[in-house]
């Protein structure tokens, strides 16, 4: 006991696992389980959103129309591209293409930063338009789309913006955490730590990145595209 009898012991294999495959399976399952908890975490907000959208549909539609769908759409495209580069990074790690791996991790991070930049621009616009909930919130005389002569109730619109900021804010927080993880991956990849035998961190961080993308895929239509007409 305590003696490492095995001669060919991969340096990344932790003592309590019998073999590398068990370690990889455990890490992968662990990430999937963690993502299940994330679904529930966002689930509470989606639940609140659906209830209030059902109650205050017109007000939500009016408020939704005030956020910039073009910027949101661009961000959707940015994230979908980043998902592609993540997949390529995982493939590069599995097939020992170090340069490609480093390049793909870098592009992923740049796309992530671009997303956050565009998001920041949207937040700035909202701030200038007094659409941030709180003391200076103002949403007077905004017509409800498709109902001539009717105006949105500012209080109900404020609930929309509250949910908008909480949901996209927590999503952005996940993006920032993702950027941190990918910076670490980048450093490890630079040192050549990932091989076809050992690339679990790339794979499970990729799962996390995809998950954060998928959340956005739901957020975008729910927040930006309520009852929009050309």
């Amino acid at each position: 006991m305590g003696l490492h009898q095995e001669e060919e012991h991969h340096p990344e294999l932790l003592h309590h696992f019998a073999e590398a495959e068990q370690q990889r399976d455990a890490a992968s399952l662990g990430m999937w389980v963690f993502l299940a908890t994330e679904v529930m975490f966002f689930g509470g907000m989606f639940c609140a959103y659906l209830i209030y959208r059902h109650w205050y549909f017109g007000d939500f539609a009016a408020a939704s129309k005030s956020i910039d769908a073009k910027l949101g759409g661009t961000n959707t495209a940015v994230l979908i591209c980043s998902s592609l580069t993540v997949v390529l990074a995982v493939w590069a790690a599995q097939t020992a293409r170090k340069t490609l791996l480093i390049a793909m991790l870098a592009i992923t991070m740049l796309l992530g930063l671009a997303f956050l930049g565009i998001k920041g621009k949207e937040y700035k616009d909202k701030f200038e338009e007094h659409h941030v909930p709180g003391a200076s919130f103002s949403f007077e005389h905004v017509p409800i789309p498709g109902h001539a002569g009717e105006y949105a109730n500012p209080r109900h619109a404020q609930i929309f913006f509250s949910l908008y900021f909480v949901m996209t804010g927590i999503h952005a927080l996940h993006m920032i955490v993702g950027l941190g993880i990918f910076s670490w991956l980048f450093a490890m990849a630079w040192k050549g730590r990932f091989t076809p035998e050992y690339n679990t961190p790339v794979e499970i961080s990729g799962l996390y990145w995809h998950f954060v993308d998928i959340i956005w895929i739901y957020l975008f239509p729910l927040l930006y595209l309520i009852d929009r007409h050309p």
Partner: protein
Amino acid sequence: MQIAIPQTAERENYLNKEYGIWSWLLTTDHKRIALLYLVSITFFFFIGGFFALLIRLELLTPAGDLVQADTYNKLFTMHGMVMVFFFLIPSIPATLGNFLVPMMIGAKDLAFPRINLLSWYLYIIGGALMLHCILTGGVDTGWTFYAPFSTNFTNTKIVEAGIAIFIAGFSSILTGLNFVVTIHRMRAPGMTWSRLPLFIWAHYATSIIQLLGTPVIAITIVLVAAERALHLGIFDPKLGGDPLLFQHLFWFYSHPAVYIMILPSMGVITEIIACFSRKRIFGYHFVAFSSIAIAVFGFLVWAHHMFVAGISVYSALVFSFLSYAVALPSAIKVFNWTATLYKGSIHYDAPMLYAFGFLGLFTIGGLTGLFLAALGINVHVTDTYFVVAHFHYIMVGGAVMGYLGGMHFWWPKISGKLYPEGWARLAALIVFIGFNLTFFPQFVLGYMGMPRRYYDYSHMPEFQVLNVLSTAGSTVLGIGYLLPMAYFLWSMRYGKPASDNPWNAAGLEWKTASPPPTFNFDQEPVVTWEAYNYEELDTPPKPQEVPVGR
């Protein structure tokens, strides 16, 4: 019960392998982390208990004379928050579960040892924040921190307590995550799903609830904090929000959370009953899947906390029906434990006394739960001491009894020492008597109409007799809790050394040394037998007992 084997040199084990504070604070050994948790939750248990004693002292007399109304509100709030989030939720999973889950399935450690240590640090950070919150004024909303009182009105430290619970929640999530992955991926060869001890099944079900429930309370706390800071209006009816939404989100976690607290205890009881009646558990698969069923049904009953809050009658009917449904798997467990006892060779050792206590008290707690699930009676007894008594029969009579029973059962394995059996039986008896004396009068009080959370009942002095009984019981109960702590500590130094398997129990954890070596087993175990093979353990004479020269 067995002869201590004199040893010339102490074997190397997880306790004596390394010494010094850092060997504990930086350990990734699940057994050491279990002990870290044990010390921390015991600390919070006594803080929560201190608040409980003050509550009982205040209610000794009808007049509100010991503390002021505001202080009383804070007392029951802090009692609830500390006991629920910092004692009951981590109690069995983080201590006994942490210690035993890898050993019972024949693994060297949990799948993610560093995350396991992280979970303890998160718990400590959350706990420190909670202590700071208590010392600088506390919270007065009740542990449920209902909106809009918590978001718009109270001027106590909601946000700080919320952050403390948020952080402790992540510790709970990480424990659950570790257990699920460990049970899926780390089982020894031959340890199939239907050979798993039922303790493992119970922890698996618990972990599912921790994983799927806790994130919802986390986001609820975020929304409460945001609402309090920025007046978003999500829970504020004045701004178009809905306080009922808060209750739905809160109870979506907090009802399943009571199963986080009781399921591990059921797992402990199953192990104890099998061992001390020397029989295979009756209906193994039913007991295993009833744990999963409780976890699933437990997510579908939350609105029975809201029958009088103004939810629709149809929704109340459905939730009432589903609340009855969750009684089925619980009843399956009780019947199967009883059937296991039938014609068993029963030993009345201290762990078994706790198991018997659990059986009776959990049954009373469960049946009164059905009273509360019935819409008509619910309206009558809502917010009375009936609810308080029901809840404590499950949580104290159930969960804590199981926890104490488990601590006694596995103490020889954890410490390598035997506790004094006579004292332990006495303590079990004191806990049982003290518990019933404390909480049974509360059923009566509640049914007579005494509301909970009142510090002054001078308009109804006829309630005093039962309140005096309850307060007297709580001091007896307090002694019952101090006793085991005293003799456990005593036994660590003066107790007789325990053999590897003092109870002659089945289960892999008994096949290694007491206390176990750091990686649990000297050789990786290979399982070729079914769980609870007590008939095999007891009937054939063991080959090594046959004298050699015959």
